């Protein structure tokens, strides 16, 4: 009986761990696009300028409160599970070296862009610090 309780307790503890692992973000933290802006028609190669308010930028692996690094989501929705690290693929660009600007190339057509800040382990903050999803047209 005692063993069962201990097992149940450990299971409960383990289940709650990913939630505990998320880094808190200040309520007034804000990530946004300085450039481009929503609806803009742009050249196929451009600099994305990533803006952040009331928080700081830190490279991946840096354990300092109220910091994170930028992720640029291209033509994709926000991750469903914010307790997991942000995917790393062609639709999810990581800026783990603390970059605040990035040179991006996109094929002609309409594209969506969205910024998502994540902590030292690439896990979004709690609450998640997310920009508006913008649409740009590459001519």
């Amino acid at each position, binding site marked *: 009986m005692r063993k069962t309780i201990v097992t149940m307790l450990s299971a409960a503890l383990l289940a709650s761990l990913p939630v505990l692992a998320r880094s808190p973000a200040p309520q007034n933290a804000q990530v946004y696009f*300085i450039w481009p802006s929503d609806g803009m028609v742009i050249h196929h190669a451009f*600099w994305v*300028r*990533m*803006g*952040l*308010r009331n*928080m*700081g*930028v*830190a*490279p991946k692996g*840096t354990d*300092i409160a*109220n*910091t994170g690094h930028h992720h640029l989501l291209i033509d994709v929705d926000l991750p469903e599970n914010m307790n997991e690290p942000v995917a790393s693929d062609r639709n999810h660009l990581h*800026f783990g*070296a*603390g*970059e*605040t*600007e990035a040179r991006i190339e996109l094929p002609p057509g309409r594209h969506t862009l969205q910024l998502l800040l994540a902590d030292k382990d690439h896990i979004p903050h709690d609450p998640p610090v997310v920009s508006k999803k913008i649409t740009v047209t590459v001519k």
Partner: protein
Amino acid sequence: MRTLFAAAAIVTILGGASAATPAPSGAYLYIGWPNDGQVVSSGKPIRVWFGLRNMGVAPKGVKFPNTGHHHLLIDTDTPGPGVEIPNDRQHLHFGTGETETTIELPPGTHTLQLVMGDEQHLTFDPSVQSKKITITVR
């Protein structure tokens, strides 16, 4: 002979201590806002955007290749390469990795300039610094 070794050791130590972090190749620092020559109204905070290309931001004390943290210099000159950036009202440190700020300035003409510091607040060699801009508050 022993003196020679000692001298060599001292030179090594001094050399190591004064060696500035080399600037990342292609690093480009600029003030995204306000613009050079901009006139802003007094009595409300001025937002300053820190623009940085080909280099990353890291809080003070964080050793990570090709990163540094921003310093905003107000009405003063940059200290030059490999020098510790003073910490006073004319040299604002952004040691938490901030990439923008708001400042308040009295009416008149002011200069603004950004300079990057490494994990020990030392400027890079060559110094990664923005153009010095002039704004007018009135």
